[in-house]
């Protein structure tokens, strides 16, 4: 495999890791807005020890794009100015809420709500980004040539709501794993089921909408109809498995199946877009940084990323099991 292909895989891997790991964080954040006041603390606390590492995958994806495909980075970031800046502010809100809420004298209810709203806005913005990418941004030469308000069109807005429901499904799966008692059996299971149904329905609209708004996707459907249909079927199979696993009481399976649905959606889309990195506009080949640049970062990734995965897993292992309803230790 050549350098641009490997580079694209690194970007895709980082984005997938981000959407899975911060996906359930953001989903829990949105669910906090629906949770009972007494449960909110436990919900947020289930994320506290690991959220920071999860969010780091977003920086990884962004910076990998800068180093591996600087042309794409320079086109996409101005094009996505509005949702990205809003997302960054919302993520900031969420992040400080995490740290501030546990401090003595902090107004916890206030910060919990800030946490929820920050998560919701960040998720919506990421959906806008996804929608704008599928619809295709305006490019002339190697520069963005559209308006920053381009993202506020029907399809990106549909994607925004779809992604929120998907993150809520992941969040429901996470809470189902990390909580017990009424919070698990009533709230988490209901949240999971409702979100998965919403995600399934909105996902159908989004798939249809993508084909309508992006003609390149229509051609792709005609050429590789079977492959696309298989991915869509598997996607729905995973969502079905998530709901039925929750009904049968398996604790880990709902989260894993929701995650599988996300991986399918992302790789399916990436396969349809390939060989472009600015979807339907600029190819990986043309957007690439010089071989020496890609080689350095790819080597670094190959050596360090496995270690990152190991100690991240260690972090999850240290904090495995149910999150206690009452804080055991907040340094």
């Amino acid at each position: 495999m050549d350098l641009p292909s490997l580079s694209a895989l690194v970007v895709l891997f980082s984005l997938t890791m981000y959407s899975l790991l911060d996906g359930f964080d953001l989903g829990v954040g949105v669910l906090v807005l629906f949770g009972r006041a007494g449960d909110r603390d436990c919900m947020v606390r289930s994320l506290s020890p690991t959220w920071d590492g999860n969010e780091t995958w977003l920086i990884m994806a962004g910076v990998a794009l800068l180093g591996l495909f600087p042309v794409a980075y320079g086109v996409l970031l101005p094009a996505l100015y509005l949702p990205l800046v809003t997302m960054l502010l919302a993520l900031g809100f969420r992040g400080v809420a995490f740290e501030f809420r546990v401090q003595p004298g902090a107004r916890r209810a206030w910060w919990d709500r800030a946490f929820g709203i920050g998560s919701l806005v960040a998720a919506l913005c990421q959906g806008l980004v996804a929608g704008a990418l599928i619809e295709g941004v305006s490019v002339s030469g190697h520069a963005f040539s559209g308006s920053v308000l381009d993202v506020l069109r029907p399809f990106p807005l549909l994607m925004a709501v779809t992604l929120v429901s998907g993150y809520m499904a992941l969040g429901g799966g996470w809470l189902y794993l990390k909580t017990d008692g009424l919070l698990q059996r009533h709230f988490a299971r209901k949240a999971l089921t409702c979100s998965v149904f919403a995600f399934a329905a909105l996902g159908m609209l989004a798939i249809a909408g993508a084909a309508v708004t992006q003609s390149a996707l229509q051609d792709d459907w005609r050429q590789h109809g079977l492959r696309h249909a298989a991915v869509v079927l598997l996607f729905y199979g995973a969502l079905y498995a998530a709901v039925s696993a929750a009904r049968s009481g398996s604790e880990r399976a709902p989260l894993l199946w929701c995650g599988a649905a996300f991986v399918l959606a992302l790789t399916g889309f990436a396969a349809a877009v390939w060989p472009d990195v600015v979807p339907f506009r600029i190819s990986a080949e043309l957007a690439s940084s010089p071989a020496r640049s890609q080689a350095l970062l790819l080597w670094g990734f190959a050596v360090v990323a496995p270690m990152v995965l190991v100690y991240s897993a260690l972090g999850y292992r240290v904090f495995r099991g149910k999150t206690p309803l009452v804080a055991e230790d907040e340094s």
Partner: protein
Amino acid sequence: MPDPVLLARIQFAFTVSFHIVFPTMSIGLALFLAIVEGLWLKTGDGLYLRIYRFWLRIFALGFGVGVVTGIVLSFQFGTNFSRFAQMAGSVLGPMIGLEVLTSFFLEAGFLGIMLFGFKRVGPRLHFLATCMVALGTILSASWILAANSWMQTPAGFAFTDGRFVPVEWLKVIFNPSVPYRLPHMLLAAYITASFLVAGVAAHYLLQQRHVAFARRTLSMALAFASVLIAAQVFLGDLLAGVVARHQPAKIQAIEGNWNDVPRADYLLVIVPDSQRERNSVQLGIPLLGSLLVTHSVDGTVPGLRNTPPADRPPMGPVFYGFRVMYLLGTAMFFTACAGLWLKWRGTLFESRRFLRLLVWMSPTGLLATLGGWYTAEIGRQPYVVYGQLRTVDAISPVPPGAVLSSLVAFVLIYGLFLYGFLRLTSMAIRKGPEGDPQPAGSPPAVRRTRPALAVLRST
């Protein structure tokens, strides 16, 4: 609508200035915490554990704000300076990518254990987590200083097809100013943390609260500060030499002269007039300028007119940024010396005037660091990559209105972050370290009126 280049720069300057305050604290406090926890493991003295837990709380607050404001920066290269990203991304991107891999993940991965893992892991693994976080802060500083120094003193690249192409990575990473700027920043962070720790300790000593805690931390902080500041003075002088060699315009702006001046004053106040290429007001200390710059009273201090007008940085901000750093640094140096003197005489913990000074001095490290960064970054203008790429050629095709409105949003929301941080930090300080034994039955108001007696009683 105002100038888009200026707006993009103001937005970046605001977000990066706000951000750098927090990593500066985190870098310093992370090492402090690692040392304290190591001492606790070694000696078993519970006081160290209380110190650790108290400062961990404040560290966590600052770290959180640092993380969320740092993410913004990694995207602003693209949102505000997309042409810079496209031209220099192939050089800077891999370096920042390695920063994320080797440092951000390390910090984030072990921070959870550090903050929430006391009862989940053994003390040794917990200490390992603290050390990993401290190591992460150092690695992060190393990569970001390598990247930023490449923008100051670019090396190891070729400029082909309208973009920077790395030719020799070792020369890119170990570019000429890195060996000076990296330790300069690390020392700045450690000195900053020392003064924060000393300030809080002095505050407690003045109030006669948490006396054992305050004495221990004040002694540690002053010991660190005095050694580190001495090293910093020496290093700063070396760095000035490097800047003079590679970025002469920056040194000319720092010194505040337009013409070459033999036996120059050390200027303290100037009102530069770039149109007429002169200072309409200037005040200074005779001969000290030549002495500091050339190490001889007869030396000649170069003026900014040596640089063609189109290549000049704005003199005022560079001059004053440097003065803030240099004068506060000097103040910290003398404060640390005085502290050592008082400690030697055995009156450090009782001399209220000095303790009050320390309280006032607690933010000086941060202000000096900001001053230094303003000098470095504005002094690099009008280039974004010194001598190679001008800032005007680097910005994004985003309308000024979008930049302005997002700038307003950043100011408002960061203002809220700062308010929250200051409020919660001051509450944590007011509450004090947990489990600190207080002299029973003597309310604070009574003790405050008889400080000398109270000190005697608690020793």
